């Protein structure tokens, strides 16, 4: 029997009319990596807040740390017990150096009002050595990459002699390689006896890093499982409460005429002699490692990154794509990788975000926005895409990631494009929302739209696409058609060239 570092029994939390958590039990073994998985709204964040003492659970809940019942359990008690949370926003000071960030807790808690800079540097060095990370202690944190900042946040937590680290969605904004680096640090910590609770909804990561996983759904505990006993599919089913049915791909399927024909398209240092075709009604997958040129190609097709050689035809006619306006005129829509920066105006309403692409069409005779037409289009699209929101006047930033992504889709669907480029359409959104994005892409294709589906997640490419192109170092190196489209075969193709 491993010893229990933390035991939570019968945890409930009610916020007004919402039961965020309903009699949840959770136990954490000392020295394990435990994952708390669940979709948005499943109660993960509330759970983290209770464990870190930021929020008190409702009466009837019991918390034990090292077997001792905790009667009052506040944030400071958690810290004294060596329980540290790394929040999703990292809570770092961008203007201060790596060293000062790492030693900040001891600066705050230190007895003397004078800062001992020598000690600050020593703490930083010692902690960075401990996780075997090589960062310049004098660099301001704002000059680091997000992955490096994550490591600084971990180092800061460790500098306080934490023995139990809670990481809230640490991988949300990291690339695959950065995730691997992060995980090797976490593994390293585990060998040194640290306990980690890892919050995530990315299944492959859950399976890769954890020893046990506890699944929450709608505020209730579904169960705790040994990771060796569950598969990704099973976890998905547990998290969503339903199973995803893979698309039936047939070899016999017929498509409309070619929508997009790319012939020998090149851009120096980015991609070379790319030739591809997308037909109406067809979902063409484009995958490959990061840096393979997928996104650069997508940007070129959307007029943001003019190619240096080759030609592009839309619906049979040659087009020059020198600006976004050119792409719009040619009937191309583009859902970007980073929706908050490239796709949406975060503080504006859903309505305004949706109509931004078609604002010209909505002007009346005297050049003002036609309110009725705007309403009509917005409500139709919101209903069609099943965007969950309090009102079309809600600001984008108040929506969940999945709903935000649907708004991005809506604004391009409003332009009625004949080709829609989806670049990483499900980055950072949960399983159920992913699924509805997939369904949406399929129904658009069924209505005759051509779709270029760009993603580095092989599973979703296999799941959704009628044909798959693999890129490597700026070239299309492989093409897979049914019945060869499967996760394993695509992976094999990517690895073959590596």
């Amino acid at each position, binding site marked *: 029997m491993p010893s229990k570092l933390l035991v939570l029994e019968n945890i409930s939390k009610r916020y007004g009319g919402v039961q965020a958590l309903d009699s949840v039990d959770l136990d954490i073994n000392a020295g394990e990596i435990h994952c708390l998985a669940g979709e948005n709204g499943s109660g993960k964040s509330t759970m983290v807040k209770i464990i870190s003492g930021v929020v008190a659970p409702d009466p009837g809940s019991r918390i034990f740390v090292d077997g001792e019942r905790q009667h009052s359990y506040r944030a400071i008690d958690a810290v004294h017990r060596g329980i540290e949370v790394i929040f999703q926003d990292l809570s770092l*000071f961008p203007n201060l150096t790596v060293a000062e960030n790492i030693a900040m807790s001891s600066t705050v808690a230190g007895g003397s009002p004078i800062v001992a800079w020598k000690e600050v540097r020593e703490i930083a060095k010692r902690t960075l050595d401990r996780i075997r990370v090589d960062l310049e202690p004098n660099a301001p944190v704002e000059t680091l990459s997000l992955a490096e900042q994550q490591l600084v946040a971990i180092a800061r937590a460790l500098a306080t002699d934490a023995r139990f680290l809670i990481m809230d969605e640490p991988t949300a904004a990291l690339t695959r390689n950065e995730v691997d680096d992060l995980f090797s640090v976490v593994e390293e910590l585990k060998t040194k006896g640290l306990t980690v609770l890892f919050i995530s909804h990315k299944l492959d990561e859950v399976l890769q890093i954890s020893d046990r996983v506890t699944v929450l759904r709608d505020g209730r505990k579904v169960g705790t499982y040994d990771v060796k006993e569950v598969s990704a599919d099973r976890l998905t089913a547990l998290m969503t409460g339903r199973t995803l049915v893979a698309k039936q791909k047939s070899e016999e399927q017929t498509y409309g005429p070619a929508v997009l024909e790319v012939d020998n398209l090149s851009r120096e240092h980015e991609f070379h002699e790319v030739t591809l075709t997308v037909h109406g009604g067809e979902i063409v997958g484009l995958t490959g490692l990061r840096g393979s040129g997928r996104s650069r190609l997508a940007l070129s097709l959307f007029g943001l990154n003019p190619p240096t050689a080759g030609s592009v035809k839309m619906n049979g006619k040659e087009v020059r794509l020198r600006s976004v306006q050119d792409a719009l005129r040619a009937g191309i829509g583009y859902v970007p990788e980073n929706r908050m920066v490239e796709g949406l105006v975060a503080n504006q309403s859903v309505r305004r975000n949706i109509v931004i692409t078609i604002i010209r069409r909505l002007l009346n005779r005297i050049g003002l926005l036609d309110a009725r037409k705007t309403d009509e289009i917005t409500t139709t699209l919101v209903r069609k895409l099943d965007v969950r929101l309090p009102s079309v006047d809600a600001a984008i930033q108040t929506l969940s990631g999945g709903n935000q992504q649907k708004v991005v889709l809506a604004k391009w669907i409003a332009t009625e494009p004949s080709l829609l480029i989806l670049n990483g359409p499900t980055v*950072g959104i949960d399983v159920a929302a992913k699924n509805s994005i997939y369904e949406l892409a399929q129904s658009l294709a069924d209505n005759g739209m051509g779709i270029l589906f760009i993603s580095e997640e092989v599973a979703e490419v296999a799941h959704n696409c009628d044909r798959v192109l693999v890129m490597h170092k700026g070239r299309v190196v492989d093409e897979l058609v049914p019945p060869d489209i499967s996760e394993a075969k695509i992976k094999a193709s990517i690895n073959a060239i590596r």
Partner: protein
Amino acid sequence: MQSGERSTNVIKQLLSRHETYVALAIVIFSIVITAINPAYLTLRNFLGLFQTYAFWGVLAVGVLVVLISGGIDISFTAIATVAEYVMATIMLRFGGDIFTSLLIAASIGIVLGLINAVFIHYFKIPTIITTIATLNVYYGVLIAITHGSILHSFPSWFNNFGNMLVFTIPGSHGGSPYGMSVLTAIWIAIIVIVWFILQHTRLGRAVYAIGGNAEAARRVGFNIVSIQMFVYGFMGLIGGIAGFMHGLMIGAAEPNSIYGHELDVIAMVVLGGANLAGGKGTITGTILGVVLIAIMGNGLTIMRVSSYWHNLIIGVIIVVSVSFSAYRGRRAVVRRSVSKERTEAVG
């Protein structure tokens, strides 16, 4: 080999600092001004310059602390004016000595500064709004009571203190002796104290921390109330001291000689590299910002440029400096905001 590497590193570090460029601008302007009129590059001119600008320099140091904390204070000119006026009134009616006068001005300043802090912290009013409002209230009350009358004929013990020199240099060729004014000495003392607070105390680092990320500062356990009380209380204290210095410098208290120059002081601090968004700024930069503005004003006069052009030229310098620093900083900032938004997008 290694020492060569180290020296390139030092150069790299210098080039990454805003202060280097301000210092460079000072050197270049000095060369130009001296070429036109050698009277500029004399110790006498500089000591005189620092006497005049010590008052502004002191205010700039206070503003620096506020800007680092992520706030802004517009009301300090009103605080200085009120402090000076109350001090002068008491001095003229009851007499006293130099320390009591300083104490009165400083206390008035602290009280008014703390009033700002209370509004900012407890009513959560943006600092710029709060301090624009209190600027008008403090100044308005003063004008309503005094009808804008000027107080003068200060006691001789007060005026004599203002004329004191910390050290004296005999004038050459029969010129009058000159030296470093007590006002400059006060500025230097405040510079040293604030430098120490900002660089070497927990309080000073806390000011940087809340300016960089207020929420994170709260989570890590800093007491935000007391830090804000310190920041605005300290700005008030500085305002009070500046009011005292202004009395020493002018020998009279006139309600509208400081009021209206808020933005000039803020401009000096921003010129020195402080960021209006908070978290950034150094004492060195602030001193250089004040010095640059001082030598520009002085140099333009020495070069006989019509004073009608002064504002324009100084405005251009500020625009160029701030644009340049924004341009250099853009890459880091873009990277940061992208990563921040990515994290938010996932929520």
